[in-house]
């Protein structure tokens, strides 16, 4: 939800402000964070009205939600556990969206990564654990990148809309997962369609005692920083952004538009695939059908709310994870139907998009 170092929306970023005084920097940070914050507040207000109309006391509900999520270390850890895949995928989508490539297939790339990770996790038992963990993560990352690159190649070779192809690739990946866990990867003698469980030695290390929170969240935050540097401080990231804003200018500049498109969507697929691998190694320890409750789709909203800024995606990932965790608490402790929370999440996205459109209007040149 933040937009660190970046003026809002289409104004895009200036990485060349190293000598700007701290004051100006923080003022700009505040300015860039304001629109998404207002968008969230507007959505929460609309949600409050909705709750009131349906006979709940919005203040009570929100109190239950926030105090529940931030009640103790364990509840916060659970929330961050939910935020981990959202941040990982959201950060990747920032890269793709900055290139104006609308990758709707993160869900399928997550599944592709989970499948490859599972294959490597249940095999190669002889490897040293540290190496084995890395192998699993790399396999997931590579599978996600390849899965996304299919759509990228179709886009540059045949001008096939990536929106359509990534959605279709979602189905293939999800059904392929079903096949794998009922067939080749199915646990011997299991009653349910699921893979064998990973050996304890290759579980991702936990970082807070007596909670399930694992180092995945640290990986996600680190990669957000890496993605930020890539987008705004590297030559390749510059090319990706130019292609995303003005492909004519990109061609004029000698930038290979095709290469940038495939690179951008492959990066987003890589992070989604990594999220799949991390989820298996850190949370479920095995593959089964419906392993994702829709992280790949929710992460689209995460990236949008962050204005496609990877650093901002950390904050917006946490916000959406809070809403997710809170929705369960609302249902359990306040008997609010979970669908209401989905409606509130939808309103957050709507108001974010609405504010983006507003900013675009006001950012028009006035000569």
């Amino acid at each position, binding site marked *: 939800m933040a937009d660190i170092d970046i*003026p809002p929306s*289409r*104004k*895009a970023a*200036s*990485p*060349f*402000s*190293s000598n700007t005084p701290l004051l100006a920097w923080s003022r700009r940070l505040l300015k860039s964070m304001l629109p998404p914050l207002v968008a969230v507040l507007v959505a929460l207000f609309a949600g409050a009205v909705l709750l009131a109309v349906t006979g709940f006391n919005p203040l009570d509900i929100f109190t239950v939600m926030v105090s529940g999520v931030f009640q103790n270390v364990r509840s916060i850890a659970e929330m961050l556990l939910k935020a981990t895949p959202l941040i990982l995928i959201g950060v990747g989508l920032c890269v793709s969206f900055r290139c104006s490539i609308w990758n709707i297939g993160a869900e399928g790339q997550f599944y592709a990564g989970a499948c490859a990770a599972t294959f490597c996790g249940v095999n190669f038992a002889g490897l040293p654990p540290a190496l084995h963990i890395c192998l699993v993560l790399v396999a997931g990352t590579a599978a996600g990148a390849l899965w996304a690159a299919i759509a990228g190649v179709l886009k540059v070779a045949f001008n096939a809309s990536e929106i359509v192809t990534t959605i279709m690739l979602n189905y293939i990946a999800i059904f392929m997962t079903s096949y794998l866990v009922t067939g080749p990867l199915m646990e011997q003698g299991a009653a349910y369609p699921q893979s064998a469980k990973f050996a304890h030695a290759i579980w991702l290390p936990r970082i807070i005692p007596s909670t399930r929170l694992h180092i995945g969240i640290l990986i996600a935050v680190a990669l957000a920083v890496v993605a930020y*540097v890539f987008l705004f*401080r*590297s*030559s*390749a990231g*510059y*090319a990706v*952004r*130019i292609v995303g*804003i*003005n492909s*004519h*200018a990109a*061609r*004029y*500049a*000698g*930038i*290979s538009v095709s290469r940038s498109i495939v690179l951008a969507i492959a990066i987003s697929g890589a992070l989604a695939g990594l999220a799949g691998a991390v989820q298996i190694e850190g949370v479920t320890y095995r593959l089964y059908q419906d392993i994702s409750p829709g992280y790949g789709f929710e992460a689209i909203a995460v990236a949008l709310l962050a204005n496609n800024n990877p650093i901002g995606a950390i904050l917006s990932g946490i916000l959406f994870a809070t809403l997710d965790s809170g929705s369960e608490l609302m249902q359990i402790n306040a008997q609010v139907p979970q669908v209401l929370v989905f409606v509130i999440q939808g309103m957050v996205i709507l108001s974010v998009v609405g504010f983006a459109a507003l900013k675009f209007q006001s*950012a*028009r*040149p*006035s*000569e």
Partner: protein
Amino acid sequence: MAGQTLLRIENVHKRFGAVIASAGASIEVREGEIYALLGENGAGKSVLMSILCGVLTADEGRIVCRGVELQPGSPEEAVRRGIGMVHQHFMLVPNLTVAENYVLGQGSPLRVLSHMKAVSARIRELSDKYGLDVRPDALVRNLSVGEQQRVEILKVLYHGIDLLILDEPTAVLTPQETDRLLELLRDLVADGKTVIFISHKLDEVMRVSDRVSVMRDGKVVFTTDTSATNPRELARMMVGRDVLMELPREAARQGEIVLSVRDLACNNELGLPAVRGVSFDVRRNEIVGIAGVSGNGQSELALAMSGLAPATAGSIRLNGEELCGLSPAAINRRSFAHVPEDRHKMGIVLPLPLTENVILQRYNRPPFSARGLLRSRAVEDHTRDLVQRFKVKARDIDVPIQTLSGGNQQKLVVARELARHPDFLLINQLTRGIDIGAMEFVMQEVLKQREAGKAILLISTELEELFAICDRILVIYEGRIIGEMPPDRSRLDEIGLLMAGKEPSARSAGSEPVRVH
């Protein structure tokens, strides 16, 4: 044959942000005539006609048709008054038949579909009447461009229109199809219709129209009976501009050849030939101009030279090295710089700051990039340097370039290209859309480059700009160089005639204008 006044457009103003598309244009169209509206691209012809059709709303001014003032901004009203437009880009659904296209939006599907037989019969009747050869059951996607245009014209007639507006109708047609179209327009007028014919092609206007108005910079600058004028006068009215300034410069010193183009040919976006065998040389210390009415292959020539569009034939040699077949990136790395025609579309990235715009071609090369990362200090220093040297007015170097005026944007583009120290500089439209001060400044800078030994090709539709700084001027017409002229203002008429595709005859070389008709 011209009758009473059918339509008057009075003092219409229209602005799009900072762009003035129409600055008090007024025209009068008489019943039963072919009225031509002539002007260069961007002169405001299409905008004026869109206002007439109710597609756009004027900021000021009014339109009176048969004594009744038109309700502005209402296409329905325009159609009710019998005004209809045949657009440059056809408004047809390719997957429907001709007849189905005609009934689109004409009431409920149920009612319309039950009448399809009658619709088809009516189309056949009209088609036979004007010899249009339109089959109502043909799928639009199977029709050629010329056929689709006839379908569009018949569609307008089908809807009972008697004032037809045709926007650049011959742009997409072969010469034979053009002849047929012009004949059709005559037939329509004979049948009592009235036609407004928008074009920038002089010979067509001379051939078909009864009266003609010339538009320039959003104003109607000249109106006359076609029989009382000639192509030369019209050309002059189209391109004529106030004399700029006299820029002092040294006499040409002929250096060695830097860029050599031979028999270059390439296609436009539609795959039709746009440049048809162009040859010229540009030497050190020389500025060669290419003059022409826009749309005669200039854009495609520039794109082919910079590797952005493939050449279909010929060669381009820079310092003896062949450029044809190289990628834009490879050409960028040669001693070749390019100020593109359309700043906003190609030359700059509007929402990005100045800093990120000045490294456009060099984002991955030293000194702006090291080990894959951008070196912000080097980029900032370079930007500050360019901003100071070219007196670019900007609040800061990290503001989006879209906050700068057009003149300051262009200064930065020219500065960026010159800073790459090219041997050869390709400039397509140096001063388009910028203020006089910036205009003079960038022209001075280009002249300085000439003194410094660069070879420069300046493509321009502004003759004054060419006269001011070029050593010689080539005239391009329909993709061919059809003449070379010295930058001599007293021979404006000859250049104007060449730009219209007419070889000046031997006797017209004198100062007395000679009537062609």
